[in-house]
């Protein structure tokens, strides 16, 4: 049975951790009411409840450098009624530059773009888990998060985001996939041990990847591979995230496909919860337009049957949001998922068709990998040869030969499938969708730019038309 020792932590982290039994006791104590505080459910409890209720749980991203400021932020956001709160970690900690994070913490914590959990240490982490009656998730972006994970577990945090692909390729330049996959294998194995001890940790997989123009089948394929790796180590609760493209039929289809794909490949021993990450690309700048996108995110999540939705804010385009804007975002996403919009119906045929093709594409991407002798080497080889790929990779370990485009409806398509081993049928459909969209003569760069700034452009068009009395 894997435990913290199997994480092979650097001694300076390992030495400061509490004992394993203490970590287990702390998890259990949290779930019971404590002196002056209510019981805090585990994230998986919250997900099960949301699933039963048929309305997505809402969670914001949030993290500031200072500890008292972080406690205050969590308390302020709690007023908006999130089901889960985040501990969003700063970029230095993500890259294991713990010393830089510590130094900034001493000089000017406001210089940090997140909460440096390792620098603060697990004792402060426990203060966070007791500051609010909702459970926490660590959101980061570390290709190798073993140290962060150990501190998070010691703190009593019951959900941990990431995976060997999704927290490597978008988040670092040159960490070999073999390294990140194996680092996450250890994390998953410890989650397996915890689950056996009755402490089910929710593991969220970051299907958002590089966030910008990610074709749904790329997202689903990557989280599926990570999910297989996690389940194999004993993970029992998986949240599979997918980034809102903004074309609602495509998004609803993708969210629904998460369930069918999971049922087909991941087996019955794991709970799988689809999660919508509200639009992760270039965000509109006006409060009205941004607000509408946030609201539509909540709606999309509910119609797609997502168990959770991670909300955005009207300050997204500008920088890390203040507490008030973040609280507004929680409420707007929740309103979008509320009964207020229960009247909305969609074209179900269109969704069904879309879902069919997403599932087929995912199968065509992952099945060659699954038939390789070993999962990790299959993944490594896949990326090396381009049969696995993501657009706009930050890492040199993906080729980024895929070229995504939006079609006329706004749905994300493959303008170039790169090395993905797609069938002729899939390729034909993709080409047809873009052909109909007909924006000829544009250079690839112009096209990419337009599609990346899709909502910004819609926003500008809306504003200009109104200025010119077009309404």
């Amino acid at each position, binding site marked *: 049975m894997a435990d913290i020792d199997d994480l092979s932590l650097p001694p300076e982290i390992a030495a400061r951790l509490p004992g394993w039994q203490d970590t287990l006791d702390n998890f259990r104590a949290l779930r019971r009411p404590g002196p002056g505080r209510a019981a805090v459910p585990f994230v998986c409890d919250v997900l099960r409840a949301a699933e039963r209720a048929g309305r997505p749980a809402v969670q914001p991203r949030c993290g500031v450098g200072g500890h008292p400021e972080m406690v205050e932020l969590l308390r302020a956001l709690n007023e908006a009624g999130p089901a889960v709160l985040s501990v969003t970690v700063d*970029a*230095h900690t*993500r*890259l294991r*530059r713990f010393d*830089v994070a510590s130094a*900034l913490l001493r000089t000017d914590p*406001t*210089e*940090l*773009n997140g909460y440096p959990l390792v620098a603060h240490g697990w004792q402060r982490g426990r203060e966070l888990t007791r500051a609010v009656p909702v459970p926490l998730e660590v959101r980061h*972006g570390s290709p190798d998060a073993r140290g962060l994970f150990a501190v998070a577990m010691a703190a009593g945090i019951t959900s941990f985001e990431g995976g060997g692909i999704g927290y490597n390729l*978008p*988040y*670092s*330049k040159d960490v070999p996939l073999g390294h990140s996959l194996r680092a996450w294998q250890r994390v998953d194995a410890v989650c397996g041990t915890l689950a056996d001890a009755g402490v089910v940790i929710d593991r969220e997989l970051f299907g958002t990847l*590089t966030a*910008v123009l990610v074709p749904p089948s790329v997202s689903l394929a990557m989280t599926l591979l990570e999910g297989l790796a996690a389940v194999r180590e004993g993970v029992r609760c998986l949240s599979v995230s997918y980034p809102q493209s903004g074309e609602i039929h495509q998004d609803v289809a993708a969210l629904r496909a998460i369930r069918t794909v999971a049922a087909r490949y991941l087996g019955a021993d794991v709970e799988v919860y689809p999660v919508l990450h509200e639009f992760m690309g270039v965000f509109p700048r006006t409060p009205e337009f941004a607000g509408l996108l946030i609201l539509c995110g909540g709606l999309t999540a509910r119609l797609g049957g997502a168990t959770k939705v991670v909300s955005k804010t009207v*300050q997204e385009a*500008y*920088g*890390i*949001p*203040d507490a008030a*804007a973040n609280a507004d975002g929680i409420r707007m996403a929740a309103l979008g998922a509320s009964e207020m919009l229960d009247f909305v119906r969609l074209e179900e045929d269109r969704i069904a068709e879309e879902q069919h093709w997403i599932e087929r594409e995912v199968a065509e991407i992952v099945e060659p990998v699954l038939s390789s002798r070993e999962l990790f080497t299959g993944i490594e080889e896949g990326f090396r040869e381009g049969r696995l790929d993501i657009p*706009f*990779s*930050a890492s*040199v370990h993906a080729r*980024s030969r895929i070229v995504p485009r939006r079609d006329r409806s706004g749905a994300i398509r493959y303008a170039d499938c790169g090395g993905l081993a797609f069938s002729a049928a899939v390729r034909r459909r993709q080409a047809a969708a873009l052909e109909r969209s007909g924006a000829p003569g544009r*250079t*690839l*760069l112009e096209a*990419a*730019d337009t599609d*990346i700034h899709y909502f910004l452009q819609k926003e500008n068009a809306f504003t200009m038309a109104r200025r010119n009395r077009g309404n």
Partner: protein
Amino acid sequence: MNASPGTRLVILGVAESDAHAVANHLIGMQLTEQGFVVVNLGVCTPLSEFADALDLHPRAEAVLIGSLNGHAYQDLRELPALRAAGRLARPVIVGGNISVGSRKSATDRERLLGLGVDHVLSDASQLVLLLDMLRAAKAAELQHG
């Protein structure tokens, strides 16, 4: 990357703690399209690696550093030391979202200039114009100075 001596060359990359790749991809493509040779160091690039790249490509007109995640100041802190050691002796142009938070102040920019950053742009579309102006200024300097 070994282009003919006449072609213009720049060094491009993203600051040390920063993994935002999209603008880096696009700016790389854009400059290439405009005829530049782009030495693209990609995301999460320490300042010392920019200096190493310049040593390797002394022809470079400028060093272009993106920073989106708010950590620009911290990530560029070594600039005075490197410059004191005679390295990175080219215009350093920083672009992106240069401080943490959704309300920006003029001091964010000044702090970077204080480190020795030569230009701060919020938008990559002004980049080629700036590079052209820098080249023209340099040519004038060589002629008169």
